[in-house]
């Protein structure tokens, strides 16, 4: 009546619900001080939505609330929401919440003449004043239509009630069951004109999906899409919990993929922190092994990693990776690695996304691995998967979390076409492929794209050994790349050639050595000859001297024998 016009054009004040995601799509929550109709079929989560609005209001926004239950007894209510971690008894003891159970039983009540619902007003008013409530939930008020028969009175009273709630200035949530042809059975939407929210729970391809739509929200902008939501042990979550803008902070920091040779192929230093990596390959090409290396490398840096496994159980992954020398158990025990193994069919896509986002928000890892995303195809169309992954990638990028997504491709399809059209949202794309040659199947790896890095254009052979994953250069032969035993053979040939060369060198060396030695021998022989000649020469000289001395002596002798005769003269005369 009057207070509704309190702030006419000044923009609507809003009461945050505290429900994850909901306040984002409504830009702040429910219209403050006004009633909101939340309708949907049985089991769609109306009561939970209302209860979470109330409890979070009381706990997080300092707004106590009154819950008027027309359907469930306070005991049932308390039990139902206890699973969400709401302790109603405690909240009531702290005067934050009041629960009024209004029992309407047609069998017990007879009517005679005119009446009104003043009793309800009085009770509500009493509770509101008692705890200074700012929020009220009426769940589900239509129940009174089945308990009381005078429709004209009831409609009149409902209208009066909604006006009264506005006057009271409380933010109210009124739940209503979905009727045929209209939003609620009794057409409550006629009375609640400010905000109407429709909840829906449907099963598509045997997977249940919950959706929410804001049918009407007077005086404010709001998202008009159908938003998926889910209910789990932490309450109500409306997706997307992130906005879809392309504003992420980027970093120059590189992180290792855990395989040194791969880091080298990616410009020498691995991938950028916070980038996304798509790893595609046919079955058995070693996707999971590479994932394990990636996880291992993260944990080695002392950072946290969440590994979402859609194919294998935790123990199986741990065991299998043990055989290639990657010890994941140790990281799990240290709390650095969390392997979350679920079957895709376990939830719908939205539920998967939400559980992942929640876990990521809680653990705050630096790396997230999803192995493999292709398994999600069993529960959603390619378009839905693509939409989900875009949201997940955005969510991760906003937190600078490096992400690795493996994707199984079938053998015969074009390898460069990912089934879910993912390549455009991924920064790096590593392709693992079979190379069939000479009756063998070997693994090849190459980097198809890597945004912002000078990545290698080469194919490397991908080996899975007991000591982990190794990359080898492949040989290029006339028939193309050589891998596996062909490469081994090539390597053998290479070795042989080297051995041969070495041998011939050795032989050559020995030969020249021998030759040298022969020459040296020759030199020695010649030297000996020279020495012999020298010796001869010396002895001849000595003989000559001796002869000369001797002839001189002879002459002397002769002279002395001719005595004093004029031998001297004779001799001089000669």
């Amino acid at each position, binding site marked *: 009546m009057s207070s509704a016009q309190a702030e006419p054009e000044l923009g609507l004040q809003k009461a945050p619900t505290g429900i994850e995601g909901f306040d984002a799509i409504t830009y702040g929550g429910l219209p403050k001080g006004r009633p909101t109709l939340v309708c949907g079929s049985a089991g769609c989560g109306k009561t939970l939505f209302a209860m979470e609005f109330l409890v979070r209001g009381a706990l997080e926004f300092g707004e106590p609330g009154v819950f008027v239950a027309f359907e469930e007894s306070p005991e049932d209510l308390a039990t139902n929401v206890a699973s969400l971690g709401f302790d109603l008894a405690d909240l009531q003891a702290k005067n934050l919440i009041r629960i*009024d159970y*209004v029992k309407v039983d047609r069998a017990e009540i007879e*009517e005679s003449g005119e009446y009104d619902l003043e*009793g309800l007003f*009085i*009770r509500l008013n*009493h509770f509101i004043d008692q705890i200074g409530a700012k929020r009220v939930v009426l769940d589900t008020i239509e129940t009174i239509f089945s308990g009381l028969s005078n429709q004209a009175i009831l409609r009149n009273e409902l209208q009066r009630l909604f006006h009264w709630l506005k006057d009271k200035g409380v933010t109210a949530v009124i739940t209503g069951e979905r009727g045929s042809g209209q939003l609620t059975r009794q057409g409550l939407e006629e009375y609640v004109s400010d905000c109407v929210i429709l909840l829906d729970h449907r099963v598509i391809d045997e997977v249940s999906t919950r959706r929410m739509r804001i049918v009407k929200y007077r005086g404010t902008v709001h998202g008009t899409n159908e938003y998926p939501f889910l209910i789990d042990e932490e309450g109500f979550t409306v997706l997307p919990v992130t906005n879809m803008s392309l504003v992420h902070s980027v970093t120059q920091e590189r992180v290792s993929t855990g395989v040194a040779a791969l880091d080298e192929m990616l410009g020498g230093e691995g991938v950028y922190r916070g980038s996304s990596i798509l790893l595609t390959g046919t079955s058995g090409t070693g996707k999971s092994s590479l994932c394990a290396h990636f996880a291992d490398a993260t944990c080695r840096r002392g950072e946290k990693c969440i590994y979402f496994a859609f194919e294998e159980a935790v123990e199986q992954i741990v065991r299998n990776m043990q055989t290639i020398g990657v010890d994941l158990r140790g990281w799990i025990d240290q709390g650095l690695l969390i392997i979350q193994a679920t079957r895709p069919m376990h939830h719908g896509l939205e539920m998967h996304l939400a559980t992942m986002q929640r876990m990521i928000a809680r653990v705050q890892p630096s790396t997230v691995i999803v192995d493999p995303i292709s398994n999600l195809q069993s529960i959603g169309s390619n378009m839905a998967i693509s939409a989900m992954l875009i949201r997940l990638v955005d969510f991760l990028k906003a937190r600078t979390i490096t992400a690795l997504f493996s994707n199984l491709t079938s053998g015969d399809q074009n390898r460069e076409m990912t089934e879910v059209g993912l390549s455009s949202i991924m920064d790096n794309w590593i392709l693992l492929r079979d190379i069939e040659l000479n009756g063998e199947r070997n693994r090849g790896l190459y980097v198809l794209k890597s945004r912002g890095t000078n990545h290698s254009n080469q194919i490397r052979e991908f080996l899975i050994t007991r000591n982990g994953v190794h990359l080898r250069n492949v040989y290029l032969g006339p028939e193309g790349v050589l891998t596996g035993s062909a490469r081994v053979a090539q390597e053998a040939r290479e070795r042989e050639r080297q051995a041969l060369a070495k041998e011939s060198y050795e032989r050559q060396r020995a030969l020249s050595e021998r030759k040298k030695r022969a020459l040296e021998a020759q030199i020695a022989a010649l030297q000996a000859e020279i020495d012999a000649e020298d010796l001869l020469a010396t002895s001849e000289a000595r003989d000559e001297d001796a002869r000369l001395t001797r002839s001189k002596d002879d002459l002397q002798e002769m002279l002395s024998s001719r005595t004093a005769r004029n031998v001297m003269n004779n001799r001089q005369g000669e």
Partner: protein
Amino acid sequence: MTEMALAPGAGMDKYILTLYVAGQTQKSIAAFANLKRICEEHLEGRYSINVVDVAKHPEVAIEHQILALPTLVRQVPKPIRKLIGDLSNTEKALLAMEISPAT
């Protein structure tokens, strides 16, 4: 509205009735008048009426599950019976309270 009790008569079933109202509204006044008339006509000397103003005692409304007003509750004889409205429909009121019309 004042609370009042009439002395029960001897013999036959006694009727202990509580009328819940909210203030002196047209409906409460009409309900009380109608109840008084019915009791005088059919239960003379063997009834008591207790009038409770829930506007003054909201906790009573909560405790006794009072939603619509006025509400008449037949405490005795058992079982407890609830009748809402200003009791302008005498037939229905008699039926609901299981009062057989005096012959």
